[in-house]
């Protein structure tokens, strides 16, 4: 499929269609948020339950626009050396020894040595620098994943980079983005993202899809699943989210479940195949027990009758 120029999208409908063409079904809310992020060249902060497809949005936008997906996975203690750039010290040291061995180092003052060593060929580019440096072709998509895992200091630093899309390396100078990358930031809300960062971003809360849209998503992602099974699976999953589980199933899990059911030859959901494949959907023993003991038969029966042929 031909890549689209992300910077020239002109309506929410176009975003909706574009994502749909790349096997992602956005609702109007998400499509609007993405549209605004592209048009206003702002980062988009996505929060929501785990497993609702936050990370997937970035991948699909990259596919759609034909740009590179540059992913920065955050974790506690992440710092500039892992996020922006680092010098290749081993090679620098080797270079230094070579200079010494060939006698070039002798007599050279510290400044000249530094110029020689802090050269772009010893620069190791990390995701943020890569995203800002990219100048040719479609704009890259920068995914800052799980920003809530990083520390406050890093968030402040990120804010700085996202404000003017430029990075200064003392030894080399300033790198500024010709065209700001498309930036998506995800958070699971283990802590609040700082207000200043939020103000910089557009915000969208990604919710679990309704049964109808979820059935469509399953069909789109797993075409081998029959339409009826997809609808029954979505119906049952929605019911299970109401039961009060430790980890309500996300979209990724329902897709897995539908695939598993389909693989076992089920054209329709029944109690036997549902309980045999429940492990694809529920990942806690307690959740499994709760669903089986109290509700599984009823949930399956309800889903089966709601979408009978």
């Amino acid at each position, binding site marked *: 499929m031909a890549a689209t120029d992300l910077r020239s999208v002109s*309506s*929410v409908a176009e975003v909706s269609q574009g994502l749909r063409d790349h096997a992602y079904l956005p609702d*109007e*809310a998400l499509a*609007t*948020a993405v*549209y*605004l*992020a592209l*048009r*206003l060249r*702002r980062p*988009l*902060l996505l*929060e929501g339950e*785990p497993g609702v497809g936050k990370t997937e949005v970035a991948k699909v936008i990259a596919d759609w626009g034909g740009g590179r997906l540059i992913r920065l996975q955050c*974790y*506690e*203690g*992440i*710092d500039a*050396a892992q996020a922006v750039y*680092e*010098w290749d*010290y*081993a090679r*620098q*040291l080797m270079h*230094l*020894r070579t*200079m*010494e061995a060939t006698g070039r*180092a*002798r007599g050279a003052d*510290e400044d000249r*040595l*530094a110029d020689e*060593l802090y050269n772009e060929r010893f620069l190791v580019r990390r995701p943020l620098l890569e995203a800002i440096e990219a100048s040719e072709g479609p704009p890259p998509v920068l995914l800052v994943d799980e920003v*809530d*895992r990083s*520390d*406050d200091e890093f968030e402040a630093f990120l804010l700085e980079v996202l404000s003017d899309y430029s990075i200064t390396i003392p030894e080399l100078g300033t790198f500024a983005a010709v065209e700001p990358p498309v930036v998506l930031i995800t958070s*699971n*809300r*283990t*802590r*609040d993202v700082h*207000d200043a960062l*939020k*103000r*910089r971003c*557009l*915000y*969208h*809360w990604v919710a679990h899809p309704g049964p109808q849209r979820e059935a469509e998503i399953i069909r789109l992602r797993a075409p081998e699943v029959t339409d009826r099974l997809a609808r029954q699976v979505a119906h049952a999953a929605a019911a299970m989210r109401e039961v*009060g589980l*430790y980890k309500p199933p996300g979209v990724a899990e329902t897709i897995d479940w539908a695939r598993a059911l389909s693989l076992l030859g089920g054209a329709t959901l029944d109690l036997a195949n549902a309980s045999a494949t429940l492990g694809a959907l529920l990942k806690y023993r*307690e959740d499994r027990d709760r669903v089986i003991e109290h509700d599984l038969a009823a949930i399956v029966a309800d889903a089966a009758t709601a979408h009978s042929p």
Partner: protein
Amino acid sequence: MSDEGGGAAGAPTGPRGSLESDPVDVAVGFASALRRAGLEVSLTSALLYAEALSVCDVASRPSLYWAGRAALVHRIEDVDVYDAVFGAFWLGEPLGVSPMAAASVPVVLQVDDADGSDEHGEESPGDTETITLRYSATETLTTKDFADYTDSELEEARRLMERLRFSGPTRPSRRPEPSRSCRGRLDVRRTVRAAMRSGGEPMRMHRRMSGRRPRRLVMLLDVSGSMERYARALLRLVHAAVAGRSRVEAFALGTRLTRLTRELSSRDPDRAMRAASAAVPDWSGGTRLGAGLRAFNDEWGCRGMARGAVVVILSDGWDRGDPAEMSEQMQRLQRVANRVVWVNPLKASPGYAPLARGMAAALPHVDDFVEGHNLESLERLAELVLTDTPRASRPRDGSRAAGTVLAGASA
């Protein structure tokens, strides 16, 4: 800017979403309507919204709605207020009572008024006198039961609580620190830097080792009716902890769970208390501890906040819910937390036994079960939180905590 004048920032009464007006005027007007309803909306966000309006199809209601949500709302909790104001501003629906305004009316926590008058009334005449008085007051206060406090004593206690430091146990961090000794991994960066100064000869190997940082501290305060006498004093303790260091989270447990971290983060104690009382809709209401813990586990705790953290629950353990739920939720919490400390103000009462159903159900999943009825016991709590005892060296099932109390009761 606009010849319509429909979107100016004046006081609105009806629908003012006149789409012919300048987007900036409309955006600023809508933003101030949101602010009046209690949302924090910065000017940056309002301008971002104006930009959004100019590229959106404003004739489409969903588009108008979602553009505002994306630009002006930064927390999912704020959506209800946004919806109400959106209806009033763009569609002319009656605003009704906004959730924020409703929450700030009934304040059962009586301490705040008294605090203010005490400050100005008693402190002015003669400085020396006050100091002597306060000193002796401190002496008696440390062992006095919170339930018997007067409002002015409570104020005094707050000052003392501010001195409690929950600096907390540390854990290994992934952020490394330079090491002075010969241990740790080689720090190539610093070694090369230093080598340049000596003409390229690395004279000294710099090393670094993993640093340490404080564990997160999560405080869950029971604000139900049975805790009323203690909750007002303990809230000050929670405030002191939140304002005193980073990585502290605070929640109120009543008939529902309310996050108080933001409200309590103000250093000004009076403002923090007011904000916290306004935020909790159910002071001195019923108790559904199990359900509250479940909400905490689902929405925050198990998702990451309680992982590796020290969790302090301040409650008397009265729970009208199902004890099975209580036990289940405590089990979940203990599995992810580094340590669970239960502070029970009733524990010090003579003849106390943890017979309240909720307390009995929770005890097997508690690492430390301590008193919390007076200042002295809270000082011990702060010390306890400071020491970093690995759980492996303690009885895994919490029998130590339960055992001590039960033995004491039967004696």
